[in-house]
């Protein structure tokens, strides 16, 4: 069994920050010669982090994306965009999760939106207790937000007077006009992007160099600091060992399914909200239940209030949403009263034609948001000439939008078939229903103000909540009030040197895209560990 000093499971926004910061710190020799290893379940689409990663030759854009029907390739791409462990279609009502995979984790699929979470998100209270540990406030995180923004090259988009790559697109101006007509206002978003590089499309020909994904910043720094990367490593369980922890799983590189076991002194779990929780759920018995002293593991999972709809605007309004960045603006006008944001975004037409937001649905009760309130409109079918002609408006007039909101953590992660993490959505709370209902009403009003129509979504039809921003499952709490799975530093309450440092530890919905906050929280934890402030320092931990 190989031994490393620090093992990090996952290379998304939590894992990448820890790899860069701890890697750089240990590379100085502050704690002697130390070995840091990142284990990533997916592939290395850049070809820079793991020479043994699958994926074939790099193309002219420096990645391994191709249009081909090769089944092995299609499997890899599908898994990059839809993590099988994070994508659940089981259970009813269910929760579908879009999750990134591969070196860079969620940054492989994010749109670069980098908003700081508002003060009110950190101050949420449930059962008369603050959901976040006391050390986390917006003001306390602001310095770490600033660090992450620098690392990710976050820029605020502009309506006018900026370089072309920093201008909002036609879609945004159409959206802004719709907002204006209903008395609201759109503003340019902050995006992690730099210079004149194209975002392009997602799964069909996307240029992955188009935005600041983690391979271009944090992970590049980690690599430069000597951090090792192993891809294709699917972690099944963790357990205590003589020197710390042992990680067991399967190395899938080269098409093999070779079992592996790696021992480490410090272990950081950062495999994403669903996968991290799954690892702890599978391992809890081996820890005698000490991973979950408050019996909250897998509980209170948030979908971050994600609720997407699609539709078309009226003739004469050129959205051309397939051009430019997939998201560049948002409407914050409803936050103060209703706690949701609206964001217009690009969606693959294939997904719209076949996926959850089937275009033929109409609400029986336009004001209602809940399940079982839709019907097929006039027998309209999702196939045939009429449907095809409806899709022909997509290129110019398709406008997808969604809300991000405060929800009540109604999701749950449990172990399903083959011990796979299964994500479920319990009954939506009255407050979340009301918030979504208001958001849907506003979005419908925007479409109608633009002379178009809104099509409905999977939640109305099937009760399926779809989210790209799962949060929680291993929620953090303060040591003084340990109603969580890990403490304010992400450390297990009963297992020293075992940490969860990704979206799984985030204790509530944020109402904004969470990548910046996940990274800022990880920065703050890394800072305390490196300096030994508020917790035992990393050098002391490795020495003991």
């Amino acid at each position, binding site marked *: 069994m190989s031994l490393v000093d620090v093992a990090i499971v996952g290379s998304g926004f939590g894992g990448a920050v820890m790899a860069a910061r701890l890697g750089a710190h240990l590379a100085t020799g502050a704690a002697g010669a130390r070995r840091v290893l990142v284990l990533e379940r997916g592939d290395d689409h850049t070809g820079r982090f793991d020479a043994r990663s699958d994926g074939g030759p790099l193309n002219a854009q420096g990645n391994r994306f191709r249009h081909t*029907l090769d089944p092995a390739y299609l499997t890899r791409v599908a898994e990059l965009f*839809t993590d099988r462990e994070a994508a659940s*279609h089981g259970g009813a009502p269910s929760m579908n999760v879009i999750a990134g995979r591969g070196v860079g984790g969620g940054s492989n699929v994010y749109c670069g939106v980098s908003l700081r979470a508002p003060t009110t998100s950190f101050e949420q209270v449930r059962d008369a207790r603050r959901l976040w540990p006391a050390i986390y406030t917006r003001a306390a995180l602001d310095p770490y937000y600033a660090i992450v923004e620098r690392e990710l090259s976050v820029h605020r988009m502009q309506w006018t007077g900026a370089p*072309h790559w920093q201008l909002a697109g036609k879609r945004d101006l159409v959206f802004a006009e719709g907002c*204006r007509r209903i*008395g609201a206002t759109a*503003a340019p978003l902050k995006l992690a992007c730099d210079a004149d590089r194209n975002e392009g499309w997602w799964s069909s020909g996307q240029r992955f160099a188009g935005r600041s994904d983690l391979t271009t910043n944090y992970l590049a720094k980690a690599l430069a600091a000597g951090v090792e990367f192993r891809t294709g490593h699917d972690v099944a369980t963790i357990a205590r060992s003589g020197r710390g922890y042992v990680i067991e799983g399967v190395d899938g590189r080269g098409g093999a399914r070779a079992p592996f076991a790696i021992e480490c002194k410090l272990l950081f779990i950062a495999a994403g909200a669903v996968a991290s929780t799954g690892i702890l759920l599978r391992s809890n018995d081996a820890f005698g239940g000490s991973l979950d002293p408050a019996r909250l593991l897998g509980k209170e999972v948030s979908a971050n209030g994600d609720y997407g709809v699609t539709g078309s605007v009226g003739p004469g309004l050129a959205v051309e949403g397939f051009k430019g960045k997939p998201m560049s603006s948002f409407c914050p*006008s409803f936050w103060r009263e209703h706690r949701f944001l609206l964001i217009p975004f690009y969606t693959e037409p294939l997904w719209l034609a076949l996926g*959850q937001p089937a275009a033929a649905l109409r609400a029986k009760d336009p004001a209602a948001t809940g399940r079982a309130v839709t019907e097929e409109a006039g027998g309209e079918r999702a196939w045939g000439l009429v449907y095809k002609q409806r899709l022909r408006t997509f290129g110019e007039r398709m406008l997808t939008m969604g809300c991000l909101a405060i929800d009540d953590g109604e999701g749950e992660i449990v172990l399903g078939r083959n011990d796979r993490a299964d994500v479920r959505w319990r009954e939506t709370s009255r407050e979340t229903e009301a918030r979504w209902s208001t958001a849907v009403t506003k979005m419908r009003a925007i479409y109608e103000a633009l002379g178009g129509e809104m099509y409905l979504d999977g939640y109305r039809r099937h009760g399926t909540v779809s989210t790209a921003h799962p949060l929680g499952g291993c929620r953090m709490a303060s040591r003084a009030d340990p109603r969580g799975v890990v403490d304010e530093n992400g450390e297990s309450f009963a297992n020293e040197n075992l940490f969860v440092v990704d979206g799984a530890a985030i204790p509530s919905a944020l109402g904004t895209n969470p990548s910046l906050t996940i990274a800022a929280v990880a920065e703050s934890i890394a800072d305390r560990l490196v300096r030994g402030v508020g917790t035992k320092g990393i050098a002391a931990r490795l020495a003991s």
Partner: protein
Amino acid sequence: MTRPWRVTTSERPTLSRRAALSALAAAPLALAACTDRAGDAPDAPAPPDPDLPPPIPRADRDAFDALCNLLLPTEPDAEGAGAIEARADEILRVDTFVPLAVAQGLLPSLPDAFVRTVERAGPDLRAALNVTLDALASSERPLARFVDLPAALKEAIVARAFDDAAQAPAFLVVRAACFTAWLGATTNDLGLRAVGFPPFEDWDDRLACSGYPRTDPKTGEVDDYTYDRAPPPTPDDDLTLVLDANGDLP
């Protein structure tokens, strides 16, 4: 840029170059036949339009093609390519297509036994679908083949199949294959162009369109996606009360 449907002849095992060229010569008539509107065809064949995809030769048509043409029909215009031209048949040759489509939310969860049957069928899936469709046709009109039924009857059969729990999975798979081929740009970009997307910048390198300014090689015009202008202010909605100077919610 290379037009994908012109250069992918070698990628199409079922369509020889000779057949494609010969079909191209008869494009208008064959296209009309593909849409079951042979009676509407012009009296004299017009010269082949280079912007039209090569049609599938009549001899290649079977119940499967007819089903594809119902689900996502070919229309007789420059952007009228449907499932057949987008090569839905090639999608069905990918033996992992069904589980991939389920994983991506493009298909609902299907019974395990059905998925295994599809995977086992492999290249025989098309033949199995032909048998199924002809059986459904025969139940309507004894001994009739599906391709020979009037369009309205074909449509009624397919509509009923989607509502039949036993038949629906197979029809959902074909529907998913049709749209995946058409909008997924797996073999060509005809479907994306049909819904208004620009052609791929470079099909050979599989580069989709760039959102950044570029000069159209035909017109010389700059293709831009921004307006570089600010929206007019909204009365009584002051964002300075909502956003801080950094552009965040405070």
